[in-house]
């Protein structure tokens, strides 16, 4: 009985990718830009869900929200928004597999490409891009998908 079960499990596994791909019309992505520094202390309430994540990696004492925007991404249609310091963030939905969205992220400044990355975002997951300095602080851009 167990062997027959395992045989059918193999069949189902072989067939499952055929049924696994569901196309969504649009994907919602939340873009939050924050300034992290060791000047002062505190964590903006809008960044509460990122608190544990960022706190486990960084030792900044203060995280101040600069920008909070929701964007809707359609397949292969770039969406741009400005982010400090004087940069442009372009998001393009490349592909989707079940609930995971493949998003190309480009950061440019005055037309010059600084960074290109391809990330996979599932609901509840976030990717942060950080490093550029602004005064005493460091700019971190967090991309996340609502649950």
């Amino acid at each position: 009985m167990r062997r027959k079960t395992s045989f059918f499990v193999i069949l189902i596994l072989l067939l499952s990718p055929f049924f696994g791909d569901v196309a969504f019309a649009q994907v919602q992505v939340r873009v939050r830009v924050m300034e992290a520094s060791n000047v002062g202390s505190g964590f903006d309430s809008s960044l509460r869900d990122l608190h544990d994540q960022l706190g486990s990696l960084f030792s900044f004492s203060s995280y101040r929200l600069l920008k909070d925007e929701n964007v809707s991404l359609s397949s292969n249609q770039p969406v741009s928004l400005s982010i400090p310091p004087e940069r442009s963030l372009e998001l393009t939905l490349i592909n989707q597999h079940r609930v995971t969205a493949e998003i190309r992220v480009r950061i440019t400044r005055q037309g010059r490409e600084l960074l290109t990355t391809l990330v996979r975002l599932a609901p509840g997951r976030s990717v942060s891009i950080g490093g550029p300095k602004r005064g005493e602080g460091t700019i971190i851009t967090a991309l996340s998908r609502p649950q």
Partner: protein
Amino acid sequence: MKRECSSISRLLEKYFDQEVTPEERSLVEGHLPDCSACRMALDTMQNLRILIKNPVEEAVEKETFPWVWEKIEKGIQRKERPGLWNFLKSWLDVTPLLKRKILIPAVAAVVIVILITAPLLYKKMSSYPGPSVVEYVESETYNVMVYELETPQVTVIWLFEDPEEESSTS
């Protein structure tokens, strides 16, 4: 070199490594003031030790061990996954079927399913090779480091700025 050097020389390294008995120490220390060759040999050993040791000490002193523990945790979790795989394998083990007369129909059914689904499988699976969140990163401007932790689920792409680059382009 003096005649007694031949007997003392066997003790010189032990003396240098502080592994001599009190009697041996007295012998060596009684001999050294009168023997420049043995003193030079000790200096040579000391110089060699400095050459070997100093760069290592400098490296250790300035090392901050960034993310080392986090990578160890991740490595341990990765290596723990085979337990689950072994469990699945035991359920998916169909070798007893090969001993029975259902082999031919079973193989035929599997081949047909593979022929139908292989092109789709290849297309889907090649897009999603693994669980990693960051597929690739390209930057001609920054040095980039990617940090991925499982607990908590964190993915960070960190850009290391070159101050000269920033001042020249801002």
